[in-house]
């Protein structure tokens, strides 16, 4: 993580992979929570995906603007995983704890 080249590679990977994980988590959590709140399934899927794509764009740019790359990785991979867990928990609750 010392040479500029490695630094850049870490940022590009954080922006693409970290951003993807974060967007996935965002969509999973958003979709399941909107559905739980009574929204029609495909509406929830569309709305969460559209907002998730905009979130992807925002964190993608932030990955390059942020001062510390480890913070980007922590926020995107950690936050994305956490959001995905929220999605699975919501699903499990809606299905009566049967099929997370």
């Amino acid at each position: 993580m010392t040479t500029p080249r490695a630094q850049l590679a870490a940022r590009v990977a954080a922006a693409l992979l970290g951003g993807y994980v974060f967007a996935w988590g965002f969509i999973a959590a958003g979709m399941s929570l909107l559905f739980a709140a009574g929204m029609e399934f495909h509406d929830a899927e569309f709305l969460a995906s559209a907002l998730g794509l905009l979130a992807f764009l925002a964190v993608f740019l932030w990955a390059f603007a942020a001062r510390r790359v480890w913070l980007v990785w922590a926020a995107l991979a950690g936050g994305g995983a956490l959001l995905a867990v929220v999605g699975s928990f919501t699903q499990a609750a809606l299905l009566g704890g049967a099929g997370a």
Partner: protein
Amino acid sequence: MFQSFRLAMAWVHTWFGLVLGFVLMAAFFFGALSVFDREIDRWAIPSTRFAPQPMPSFDAILRPAFESMQPTPEAIAEMRPRVDGPMPQRFDTVESWSAYTTHRDPVVALYAGFDVPNAKDPEEAIWAYRTIDPRDGAALPDDHLKIGSGFFYPMHYSLTLEWRSLGYWIVGLAALTMLAALVSGVVMHRKLFREFFTFRPDKAALRSVLDLHNLTGVVALPFHFFFAFTGLVIFAGIYFPVGHTQLHGLHDLHERLEADETGLPHERAGTPAALASVDAMVEEAQRRWAARGMAGDVGFLALTHVGDANGYVSVYRAGTDRIALTGEGIHFKAATGEVLREDPPPTAVGRVSEFLTGLHLQHFRHWLLRGLYVLGGLAGCACIATGFVFFVEKRKRQHAKQGTQGARVVDALAVTTITGMVLAALSILVANRLLPGDLPARGDWEQRVFWFAWLFALIHASWRSAPVARGERNPAWREQCWAIAALAVFAVLANWIGTGDALWRTFATYWPVAGVDMALLATAALATFAARRLKADAVVIATQGRTVAVPEAAHG
């Protein structure tokens, strides 16, 4: 690591823009052509040059066509790995029959989905496709490529790389890059505006390239953002298949709830049933639309669980008169023709979704907007192209002094992506007119010509690229412009001689073909103009012959 937010954005803009700009260019160019995909289809398949037709009678025309449809041997071979046990050669359980048409289609596309016994995913169907003349039901030869809707259109979202949906992912990444380039470009532009005033006159050429880059980027900014964003939204299910993987349970729950609520059976009953007159159902649907004051063109007609007691028929209104693909579906029991359900008006979110996808795919009738779409798409191409040129012009003299090849390689790739892509598109049209009409797998040959022409453009651009390493211009730009002009004129002549449809005749009688011919002639004129300008520039540069240093401002 970047000293400022602005420099970070400049890095993203320059390098992501460079690497994915080549893909973006294809998405914008072939997207712009897809706006007139039906018209290009007419040009490419002369036997379909007649007026758009409404959805034909199901009972007289569609039903016999559907009943004779079976998956191709290729589709069966492709399906085989996803089946446990023996693969049947004939499919008799029809899961769905459907037909789609728009206000621009003389021919109608038919889709038949069949149950596959022992499929690993029991939901997966095997598909058969056919295009028919709706006036008599005659099938079009399926090896005649619809160059517009069957090649340029998929090219713009998948590069026709179907393997593991790889093309969709590459174009998706390019679309994300487009969004990032627009945001980062605006961030850079604020500072650049001040730097305009510090430019000296001898950088006029470089500055005008940047002006054009900013102009085409900023003027059409909402257009670019909208199309890149909605393109991602349309394929969000491919990029983020959350509902089919992680949240599959919720999806299944929704399907059960939906079947209960709508009364439209999700499964077959298992008992055979006859099919009542579908024409009578369409008539009833049109009566109900008319009662609501709506036009009665059918856009999509679908039969589900064909031949089964649970079968139903869905009739959807064409999206000709509003921003939607189709809508106001009315569903009938297939065996009796009784109405099962009228779709309720869409929800607020549903309307937003319909608007975004409808405005991108544009199946509604609005010829002026259709024309503006092409201009917007070409503005996107100009923006990306000037981005490449700026990248090269800014570095090539410096690279020449250092003896590095970076600018030379980028320039050759830029030639390939800009003029080379136009050449490839023209080549497939010319091949379409020159290949024998009865050549087996004709469409495959046309596609081969397309890829070989593009490859040839790359080889030519690389072979002629040496001057760039000396800080001069690649003559391939000019030479490929001349080739474009010649091919475009040749395509118009080939259409005239091959089909008898001269421009002055189609101009009065058949606009789809006249429009394509006129676009080809305009392309030839523009390419001639560009080639002559490049020649004049080359003379000026040769007499000037001094190096121009460029400040390392933005664009890293």
